[in-house]
């Protein structure tokens, strides 16, 4: 139990972040993380001792998130990420780079769920490609192609922002 605490506890902030950005709803995200932790506690002994705790936890969390998103999709609910996490968008724009955090978050929000999940796991939570593949339950080649597509799409969205007319059209859902 003690090694479980040491391995899991430091990851809780990351699990919360992943769930929140994926679900776009902080209360639902914390519920999901609680479910995830409860499962992790009860299944800790089933985990392969040599396996990576981070990949294992993200696998549990991602599966719960997918179930939840399928349910939410049936109900048709949708909350924008900026509504859900004011802290994440309240920061000053990154003027020097010419890229605004708000724009990037909005572009992230518009990615298809599978692309958003890959991008978050790899670039934000810094899972290896192999661990991301495990967490998502897809082959590593799928991780690579989704990652590439996610980045292309983000880049195009941000480029679109420089030409207001184009981005306006693009923003229409």
């Amino acid at each position, binding site marked *: 139990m003690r090694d479980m605490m040491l391995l899991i*506890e430091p990851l809780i*902030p990351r699990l919360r972040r992943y769930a929140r950005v994926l679900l776009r709803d902080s209360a639902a995200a914390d519920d999901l993380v609680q479910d995830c*932790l409860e499962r992790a506690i009860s299944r800790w002994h089933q985990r392969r001792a040599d396996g990576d705790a981070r990949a294992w936890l993200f696998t549990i969390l991602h599966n719960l998130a997918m179930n939840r998103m399928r349910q939410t999709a049936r109900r048709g609910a949708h909350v924008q990420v900026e509504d859900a996490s004011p802290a*994440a*968008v309240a920061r000053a724009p*990154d003027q020097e780079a010419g*890229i605004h955090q708000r724009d990037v978050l909005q572009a992230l929000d518009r990615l298809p769920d599978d692309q958003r999940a890959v991008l978050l796991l790899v670039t*934000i939570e810094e899972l290896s490609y192999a661990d991301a593949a495990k967490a998502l339950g897809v082959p590593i080649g799928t991780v690579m192609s989704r990652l590439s597509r996610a*980045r292309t799409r983000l*880049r195009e969205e941000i480029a679109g922002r420089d030409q207001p007319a184009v981005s306006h059209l693009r923003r229409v859902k």
Partner: protein
Amino acid sequence: MNGGRPITEDDLQGYIDDAIDSRRRAEVQAYLASHPEVAERIAIDRALRDTLRDALAPIADEPVPAELNLSRLVDRHRRPRRDWRSGPWQVAAALLLMVLGGAGGWGLRSVQEPPRAGIAALAQEATESYAVYAPDMGRPVEIKAADAPQLVQWASRRLERPVSIPDLSGAGYSFIGGRVVPTPHGPAVLYMFDNGKGTRLTLLARNMAVDRDTPMKLETEGHVTSVSWSRDGLGFSLVGPLDQAQIHPIADVARAQFSRAI
């Protein structure tokens, strides 16, 4: 041209994520040097990655809410809810007892009802009082800390013995006030403490007809733990949304003060 393996899209992704070895990395760099349009795209991707990391970093810096306190979740897992006291098992048990002996169904009373006396009853009453008064934002206490002498006088008169207010400030909890509350075993005094961060503890004290001198007993129900003990016929129960390891030392402080005072 470097003459080696051609650079793939996967190599470019790996370059952005710092996920390729240094040799391949050098090859990608050489490729980018001779393909400025790809280099520009990769530079934007890296900038986007950094912007996203910065934008989402504050979420991981937020304090973790109490519901996600791992030791509390572990504790709850170790002490599963007493399922036999509720749900289908209770129905099954009732039916079984009825079938076994008609009026024998009365036997179930002892299972269903809360403990009727002693330290277990005290803990139950204290937990109930905590649940009613601690979350009360408007009027958690009837007499505020500023009028502590009045409260002590009231409590001591109703309990027919002196009941002082313990000082838990060493544990970070300041006294905010209290009231006299009813229990099935007569009046009790409820003192309330607050740590300034929204966590409240209550201490219930009443006279004990049985279990008049009892060592500490800890009980956790859901998020809430009670520590109950008695001394010279006066029972105490400290209740709060803490785990046992957290609340036990605070109860020790209170008990030590009462041992001196009484």
